[in-house]
């Protein structure tokens, strides 16, 4: 493809997650036909988000205020940190309304096949934070996804944090809402039985 402005724009859209070549073309031609003001708004929003959104120095979540509002909120339970893979996970847990403690975002998960090991994640930041900043922490909830990478990450964190004398827990595993027993795999079904509850 020739390196023309329109092709550069198509390629830029194509790099976005979940955007195929057809959608990228549609976006590009939409921008081309739109008033210049609309294009400028889009460009400004893109630059602004890169300029003003930073990682919170404590929890590593995305924020435009540093430390972020969650880390500064005195009404939250400051003895417990929920460790998640991505900023979107913080939003999901906040929406659930089931948690009022602090967060720590790892920005990924241990995944050797993608070239990601512990040192690529915000793990040393978590250790420093527990040791030097949030000294009242007594529990760490590891809320990584229940897949191979998420489990490797949670087990690694549990071992790493063990000498710090904290309670390290992880999210209960079991069947997702709306699931069918018939189609559950052995690991999930086994866990659901293991962590059964009184009704």
């Amino acid at each position, binding site marked *: 493809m020739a390196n023309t402005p329109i092709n550069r724009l198509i390629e830029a859209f194509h790099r976005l997650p*979940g955007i195929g070549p057809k959608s990228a073309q549609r976006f590009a031609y939409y921008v081309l036909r739109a008033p210049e003001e609309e294009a400028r708004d889009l460009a400004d929003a893109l630059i602004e988000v890169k300029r003003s959104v930073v990682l919170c120095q404590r929890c590593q979540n995305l924020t435009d205020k540093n430390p972020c509002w969650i880390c500064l909120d005195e009404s939250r339970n400051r003895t417990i940190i929920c460790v998640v893979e991505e900023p979107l996970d913080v939003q999901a847990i906040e929406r659930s309304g089931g948690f009022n403690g602090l967060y720590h975002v790892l920005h990924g998960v*241990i995944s*050797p*096949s*993608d*070239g*990601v*090991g*512990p040192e690529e994640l915000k793990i040393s930041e978590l250790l420093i934070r527990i040791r030097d900043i949030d000294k009242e922490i007594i529990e760490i909830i590891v809320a990584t996804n229940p*897949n*191979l990478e998420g*489990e*490797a990450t949670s*087990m*690694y964190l*549990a*071992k*790493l944090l*063990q*000498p710090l004398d904290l309670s390290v827990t992880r999210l209960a595993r079991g069947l*997702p*809402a*709306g*699931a*069918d027993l018939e*189609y*559950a*795999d*052995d*690991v*999930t079904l*086994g866990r659901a039985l293991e962590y059964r509850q009184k009704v």
Partner: protein
Amino acid sequence: MPSRIPRVTKTVAIVLKSRRLGDADRIITLLTPFRGKIDVIAKGLLRPRSKMAGHLEPLTMTEVLLAHGRTMDLVTQAQSVETFAVLHNDLQHLSTAMYLLELTDRLTVEHADATEIYEILERSLRALAREDGIQLVTRRFELDLLTVTGFRPELDRCLETGEPVAADEAFWTHRGGGVISSDALANYPEARKIDSHVLRVLRAYQSLSYEEASRIRIDPDLAGRLEQVMHEFVRTQAERDLKSAEFVEESRRVSLGVDAESDA
């Protein structure tokens, strides 16, 4: 035009890895006995009601139904045969399993018969799940896999002269692919002395039966040295860093710090 019925194949497979494709789909890398390593598409896997999700996780042995696709086959059904659940209970076992998967992925090419490789991987994962020693399982796995992929390390005879080399006089070259005697040093400037304990254990692992090899006691210190030599060798043959090898080493480090147990 005659309507073409899509070709469907059923095969057992071990899931090596999986990566996201769009919002809900995944590309799954499978190792199958007869079609070798293949990438297939699984649709809707990230949706909570997916019927296949748990059956296509890496480190699962699964029976899949594949519909022939234009570029990649599509998984239409998956039923796990073996999930190696006990490997999910211990960090060192899990990181070792991840290493076996990554090494298999790196040393195999797509669409080539992989019957032997499949057998080696299945056998090794089962042994790991039976709690056979991690060193025994991993080193045997590496030696077997390297042999069938054409990278078998020469542990007994000098690469240059072909003469037997005594363990305490042997030098080791990753690039050359095995041991040399001091006479051959001029041609292998990168070679260095190999720990004779490490070499004796590797020789035993390469030549003895699995049962005989399993009687060798390995203390944690020797385990670390064995691992170091083989990881470096494997990195050289795979021509790249293996992130899972680093993770195995790091998992050993944090685990030993905590429970100081031998894994042999």
